[in-house]
């Protein structure tokens, strides 16, 4: 099957004081459509860097990154922003919801940056919140929701633009295990509907759900089947 995501010889180095830190060291890596990948590794191993490069938030120093036919390595900010807006849904460990905006408005945010009319945005955002089981919490502020509910709002936000890929960076990191399982269930369900899912985690229970686990140590990939 053709690869949805293909990284070839990707290198990314950070400078920390006088030291050069190899976040990614000559990494090559493929993901086919509809896969569920878990990226694991100790902190500072480069797993977030890998996810950010796939998500179009970061540029590699060298190598090529092709996602859905788009070469991202040398794409400029404007086109990269459009790419993120059309292809990628991000879910963060700390939810990153806007506290002064309702659940509905938070989910509508990515749609504001696309060419969608206000009415359609509302309908789409409502649809997404219903899909994650929050159809009755549209007007709630994040502060009025539990941690699990907040992360579901974040997932709905990622879902709003009908992404081909959802990148979740420690989505269960701030939740207890029951809430974490609940969230993983929602994400797995979306994966089953055909969305490619990349989850960064160091929770083995989460990694176990993935089709494939990619372990990163010192910027090198150490792949094992899930």
């Amino acid at each position, binding site marked *: 099957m053709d690869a949805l995501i293909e990284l070839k010889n990707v290198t990314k180095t950070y400078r920390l004081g006088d030291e050069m830190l190899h976040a990614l060291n000559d990494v090559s890596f493929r993901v086919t459509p509809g896969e569920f990948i878990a990226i694991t590794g100790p902190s500072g191993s480069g797993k977030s860097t890998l996810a*950010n490069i796939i*998500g179009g*938030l*970061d540029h590699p120093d060298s190598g090529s990154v092709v996602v859905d036919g788009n070469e991202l390595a040398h794409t400029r*900010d*404007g086109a990269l*922003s*459009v790419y*993120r*807006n*059309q292809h990628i849904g*991000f879910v*963060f460990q700390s939810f*990153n919801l*806007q506290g*002064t*905006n309702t659940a509905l408005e938070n989910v509508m*945010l*990515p749609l*504001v*940056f*696309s060419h969608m009319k*206000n009415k359609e945005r509302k309908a789409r955002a409502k649809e997404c919140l219903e899909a994650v089981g929050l159809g009755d919490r549209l007007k709630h502020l994040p502060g009025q929701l539990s941690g699990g509910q907040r992360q579901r709002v974040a997932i709905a*936000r990622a879902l709003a*633009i009908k992404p081909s890929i959802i990148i979740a960076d420690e989505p269960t990191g701030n939740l207890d295990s029951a809430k974490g399982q609940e969230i993983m269930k929602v994400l797995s369900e979306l994966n089953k509907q055909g969305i490619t899912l990349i989850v960064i985690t160091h929770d083995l229970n989460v990694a176990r759900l993935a089709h494939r686990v990619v372990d990163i140590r010192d910027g090198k990939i150490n792949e094992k089947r899930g």
Partner: protein
Amino acid sequence: MQFSDYLRLAFRNIRRQKLRSVLTIFAVVIGATSVTIMLALVTGAKGFFLNQVEANGTLQQVAISPKADITEFNDASHGYGGNCDGCVKLTDTIVGKVKAVPHVIGVARIANDGNLEAITYGDKKLSLEQTTAYDANGIITNNIVAGRDIDSRDQSGVITITSDYADKLGFKNKYDQLVGKTVQLQTRSFYSGVGADVQPPPQCNGPCDPQQQQNQKSTILTAAIVGIADTSNNSKTIRVPLEWMRGMEQNRMYQQTEADQKAQQDACKNVRGNCSPTPPHYTLITRDMLAENGYGSLIAKVDSSKNAAGAATEIKKLGVGAADAEASIKQQLTIFNILGLVLGGIGGIALAVAAIGVVNTMIMAILERTREIGVMRAVGAKRSTVRTLFTLEASMLGFLGGVVGVGVGFGLTRVANIFVNKQLASQNVHARDIIGLPIWLILAVVGIATLIGMLAGLYPAARAARLDPVEALRYE
């Protein structure tokens, strides 16, 4: 992303930190208010000045001087009586020619002189610097505060004086009581005009100098005060009817007639040796010096202010100096414009300080919302989107401050007008609500405040746009 989305997001962000936004806007309000008031004052003063000029008809006037090189209205209207080199005497012939110039609808002849040296009422005696007279045909108008102005029926024996003189005569705030009172006017020495007791020279043998027989004492003329004029134009003048002035200007003296001289010569023609002719016969000869030397200046009135410049050009072809008021008014308007810049600049300082507040607020907002900016970038906001959003937010702070500031300024000018109106009323000036706030000024102040907000937002917005999304998302 549509403009309405930007507006909505920016407005929501402003509302999020209410106190900080209100304080920032308040600073802009102070700046916008001071700019509004300063400019309203200047605009009002300028409008008032133009109104006054329009009302007293100066724009419809052409001042004519005997000196051809006069180009300033004010210089021309001051006039130059008597003789001067290269001057064209403003005689009634010239007056006739001026009246024939197209668009000229009337001419006022003006004569100033110093024949009268003092005015006496009761025990008060004041020195006079200038006596003025002109046609009472409505071309030159005065602001009469008591009694009436001199009119065309007045021939002699009446004057108007300025309120300055009335004050000095002891009639401050009771001008009405001075109207109708009779005063003595003392002429200069060697005065031979109307009212002077000119004596024939004493009989003398041989040639006599007729000048010696002139009246050397000053003459006392009496006049009734018919009105008191506002002091604003000429503080040290009294006005007399033009025909009376003509009389005062007269040069009257006894002279031997030519017939008498010839008779004397004839009587001695055939006499050898000493001939004692018949005593000379003197006759009182009166010369109209005003007609001979011309008037000091003329004011021609044209049918419309836009024809004044053209009429002035035509009148100059008669060899006289002529100037319309537009040039000198332009000069005065320039002063108002400079004043506007200076006062507006002072108000602008407050606005500049407010701009620093906007910069501060925006930098704070960006620090606080770093993660939020990261999220926006992650879900598809471009750098330019972030930049536009924050610039717009800063502009909106400026705009809101501008709107409120103009509102406050408007209120304050209304209050100020109440006081100014009282002042004007007490000065007998028929103008009200002179501190104006025209629509262009309102729009300009709101526009400037918005622009300053926008400029203040440029740097913080650029900083926000430069944020690396990965770093921003990690920001604690």
